[in-house]
């Protein structure tokens, strides 16, 4: 068992997820299943193969430093749950 209750609780906390007992049990099992499957990869010989940072054969995709119009403020704030003085209102942080 690679994932125990403590790990699930910690990851849930970092992800701001409130899990109940049943969910914690479920995730312990599911995450361990996923990791066991991933373990299969370890049997592959990767000696001499450079680590891969990106799956596509792309590099140096860049844009020129030229200003483009931003989005209208009204649209930007359209999905804000709580708009106050042109800003996104968010609940108490700490």
């Amino acid at each position: 068992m690679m994932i125990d209750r403590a790990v699930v609780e910690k990851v849930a906390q970092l992800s701001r997820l409130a899990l109940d007992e049943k969910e914690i049990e479920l995730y312990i099992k599911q995450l361990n299943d996923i990791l066991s499957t991933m373990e299969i990869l370890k049997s592959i010989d990767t000696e001499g193969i450079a680590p891969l940072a990106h799956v596509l054969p792309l590099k140096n995709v860049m844009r020129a430093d030229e200003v483009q119009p931003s989005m209208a403020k009204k649209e930007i704030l359209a999905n804000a749950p709580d708009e106050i003085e042109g800003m996104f209102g968010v609940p108490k942080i700490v």
Partner: protein
Amino acid sequence: MSDYEVIIGLEVHVELKTATKIFCGCTTAFGGEPNTHVCPVCLGLPGTLPILNQKVLEYAVKAGLALNCQIAEYSKFDRKNYFYPDLTKAYQISQYDLPIAEHGYIDIIVGGKEKRIGITRIHMEEDAGKLVHQGSTITTASGSLADYNRAGIPLIEIVSEPDMRSAEEVKAYLEMLKAIIEYIGVSDARMEQGSLRCDVNLSLRPFGQAVFGTRAEIKNLNSFRSVERAIKYEIARQEDILNDGGQVVQETRTWDETKGQTFSLRSKEDSDDYRYFPEPDLPPIIVDKAWVEQLRQDLPELPSAKKMRLITEDHLPEYDASIITASKGTADFYDGLRKHYDDAKKAANWIMGELMAKMNSQNVDWSELKIIPENMAQLLSELDKGAISGKIAKEVFAEMFDTGKKAAEIIKEKGLVQISDTNAISTVIDDVLANNPKSVEDFKGGKKQAMGFLVGQVMKATKGQANPAVVNQLLNEKLSML
């Protein structure tokens, strides 16, 4: 003398002076209405893709070269995951294990001794948005308001080795770092305006101990002065804890400028908690070696080289050379002045004296300066020619500083031209001697200070415009003949 050695490393964030944000075309202009420089990319809306601004890469490489780093041939972006409302995506695009530059250094001078401070790495990342807390402090606030104009502004983070041992070394390092960044023109690097931000990692250890003690990270330092004060406070705080047999807690502390203290903000999340992983939306960066070499060749003269040049070629004292080269503004003004004026030492004196004093007292920045080097050169030439006295030159300078007018114009307008004409001065002296018989008697009776009084009277009668050397000479001659 303390029993503990102070270990300090810095993390400096520098806002790059690009026109657009790091991954989208939104402007980086400062001071827009909240949320007007925002688009789906920098707001992190689903389905959007970031594209790297090539200027950001160029500036980061330039900074790496100027700070003596090795530029990575292969570099990539990573996601740094954490929840905070200034970050819309719940992750920041940063660089983790393959930063753009590593293994650099800055040479500083403290107490006349040179010291090399290592630079661990430089990486590129995006800035977060700005939060306004509704209430007096973050802990008592009822909620916060988010403005994302700053989200996505390009930053480089420059991480030093834990090589600094005192607040003085930190100050010297920061000043040199700021000067280099200004010289290469990749940022305004102004701490008060947030374009240069500094976090301090500080720990203590008993002298002779090999391992470092537990460190605290200090944030919210908004000026060079607050960096110095916070370091001194934090050293004393950790010393007290250790002396009482306690243990320093690894945590983030915030500096309170008014109270002059650091306060615990939160215990430091382990770096694992950020769960870094490669950013799948951005392909890796493979820099072209020839391009890097070109950038290296195009680097301007840097502060240390310029300082050496001022010492060897202009024969300035080391102190003067340090001050003149400490900021790009000062150095540029000096260079401009020297283009039109030969006397290096006098040029330096006027910049470090009159000019910088006025700039400090009126809180004027180099970019806001009205007086231009060419006009300042004219003023000094007038002074050298003897057309005006030193005292008048300072008056003229003050007016030039305030209005930007040319020296000759002010001298003419105000009729300030120095009188060196012997006949004219001679007439005034005769009048003064006739009107002050008592002082003349005093002088003849051996009271030498009467001479000073008489010189003063002549200067007064000529509104300070008489050439003091001529006045002294003529007065001496006349008195000796009486």
